[in-house]
Structures are given as structure tokens and as C-alpha cells.
């Protein structure tokens, strides 16, 4: 019981203090779980977190669920996931009230007009950063282009992602044969 509470508190603090989502959270989880509380040995935790990062979904939730499941089974998984998600849940509930209330204030509208423009630049920067590792491989560049074009024609993202998984499977098989 006490360990469950400690786990909840660790992940609640991580959820409440990290700006910028999963990639920022991983090293903090490693510090808290391995170095500070010695709950999981460093190497084992690294292996768990690498898998958690490659899974789809919210990375922070995946990481918290994996660690919780490893330590305390299903209950641990639920406790850790709730801990990491609760701070942002509460913050947004609080802010949503404000945003929906002050929506027609001209100063707030002006602020969000400028913010939205800046966010477009931020998304473009994030897309470029995410795309950079794929630029070495011609087939991957082709897949980026195909996905972009099919998205214009409203092909569902789930279909495209499943197609990508299949394409990845086939690309690597060809490579394996020539090597």
C-alpha cells in the first residue's frame, strides 16, 4: 500500500513538473525510479522505457504504465498512469473554464491571434526535427511523400499507418536479401 502511494506520488510529481511531454520525462523517470528510490535496476528500466517509447499513444502514460506494471502488476499500472496524467487533467479543467469564459475579450483574442501564428512555426520546426532521421533513406523519403499526398485525399491516418508498417516490413526484407 505504501509503495503504491509512493509510486503515485513520484509520477504525479513528474506529471506536474515536466514541460514538453515524453522525451523530457524519460530521463526524470530514470532518475526517480532507479537512482533515487532504487525500485528498478538502471539497465532493466532502460529496456522497459525503450519499448514504452516505441509504442503508440502518449509516451508519458506508456512509460508510467510500464513501470507500474513491472513493480506492482495491474494495480501499479493504473496507479502510475493516473498519477502522471492527473496534473495535466486538473490544469486543463481549470484553464478550460478561463479560456471558454474570456473567449470574446479583445485582448485575449489578440494574444491568441499572435500565439496561433507562432504555434504554426513551432509545429513546422517539430515536423522537420522528426523528419530529419528519415532523410538518409530514399525509400523513407518516398513514404513521407506518399503519406502526405494520400492525406490530402483524406485517406484515414490509421490506414496510412498500417500501410507504413507493411511497407517497412517489405523494405527491410529486401534489404536483408541483398546483404
Amino acid at each position, binding site marked *: 500500500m505504501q509503495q503504491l502511494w509512493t509510486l503515485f506520488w513520484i509520477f504525479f510529481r513528474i506529471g506536474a513538473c515536466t514541460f514538453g511531454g515524453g522525451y523530457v520525462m524519460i530521463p526524470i523517470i530514470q532518475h526517480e525510479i532507479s537512482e533515487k528510490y532504487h525500485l528498478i535496476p538502471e539497465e532493466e528500466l532502460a529496456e522497459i522505457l525503450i519499448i514504452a517509447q516505441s509504442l503508440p499513444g502518449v509516451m508519458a502514460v506508456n512509460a508510467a504504465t510500464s513501470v507500474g506494471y513491472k513493480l506492482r502488476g495491474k494495480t501499479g499500472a493504473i496507479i502510475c498512469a493516473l498519477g502522471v496524467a492527473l496534473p495535466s487533467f486538473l490544469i486543463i479543467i481549470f484553464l478550460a473554464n478561463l479560456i471558454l469564459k474570456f473567449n470574446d475579450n479583445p485582448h485575449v483574442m489578440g494574444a491568441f491571434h499572435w*500565439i496561433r501564428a507562432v504555434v504554426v512555426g513551432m509545429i513546422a520546426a517539430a515536423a522537420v526535427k*522528426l523528419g530529419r532521421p528519415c532523410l538518409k533513406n530514399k525509400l523513407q523519403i518516398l513514404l513521407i511523400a506518399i503519406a502526405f499526398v494520400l492525406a490530402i485525399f483524406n485517406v484515414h491516418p490509421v490506414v496510412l499507418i498500417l500501410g507504413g508498417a507493411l511497407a517497412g516490413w517489405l523494405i527491410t526484407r529486401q534489404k536483408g536479401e541483398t546483404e
Partner: protein
Amino acid sequence: MLQLCLEMMLVFAMIGLFCFGGGYGILPFIQGEVINRGWMEIQEFINIIAVSESTPGPLGINVATYVGFKMGGLIGATFATVGLMLPAFFLVLLVTRILQTERGGRAWERMTVGIRPVVVGLIFYAAYSIGCTVLLKPGAAAISVDWLSVLLAAMGFVAIHKFKLHPVILIGAAAILGALFMG
């Protein structure tokens, strides 16, 4: 009401099961699954991105909570957010074990070789369509370009991409200046 809550839960569970690539991995799903359902305007979504970048916590949770809260209050927020998180349990309890085996891990690695570029293409498209709504002004006769927004977007890109500025600083500055000049 219950039907809407369950629908939100299912939609966000589907997003949770298929969004790759960290925070912005949710972008490709927003237009088709959330905006077309009338749950949120695109402008609202971009506001939430800004709020998310300036507050702790992952973007996905923020979006699910906001949409759920707007459409169904506290109960709606709970359904949507739990929905987004549900696949994580399935994945961790069942799939992790498969990925830990040598064959499973190798197969997954091969698939991600194709998934990653597809996600990049999808996020580029989402960035493009979001860019169009923010940077273009629909007029009575023709669509015109909002040059101020284009300039701000370019500055935002350079600040993050080249100078690695923290998003919070950028958003804070834009909020203050925007409130002063447009208010």
C-alpha cells in the same frame, strides 16, 4: 449524454492506439476525428497546443481533457482522457511481452522503419493545413494572406529550429505583444 461520452472515449482510444511520434503524433487525427465531429474548432485546437506547451504534461492528455470537458463537463473530460489512456494498458500488458522476445522485437523494428516516415508525412500535412487556416484570411471575394501571421510563424520556426528557444518563452512573448497590439 452517455452516448456522447462513450463516443469520445472510443475516438480517443483509437487515437491512443495509433498515434506515433510523441506529442505531435496526435495532429493527423484532429481534423478527421475531432473537428469534423464538431467537438472543437481548428483555432481552439491551436490554442490548446499553445496552452499545452506552456503548462506541464503531454499534449494528448490536454486535448482529450479539453474536448471532453467542453462537450460533457467533468464526466466528459474523464471519459475522453481515460479513453486516450486505455490502449496503454493493453499495449503494456500484452504487447510489451511480445516485443521483449527477439523475433517480436525484430519484427516491430522492421515495421517502425515504415511507420516513422508515414507519421512524418502525416504531421507535415497537418502542419500544412493548420498553416493554411492560420495564415490565410477568407475574404468576401478572395482569400488573402495574413502577412503578420506569416512573419510571426517564420520567426517562431527560426526561434525553435535554429536558436532552440523554449516554447514557453516564445508563447509568452507572443501573448503579451498580441494582447498589447491587437487589444
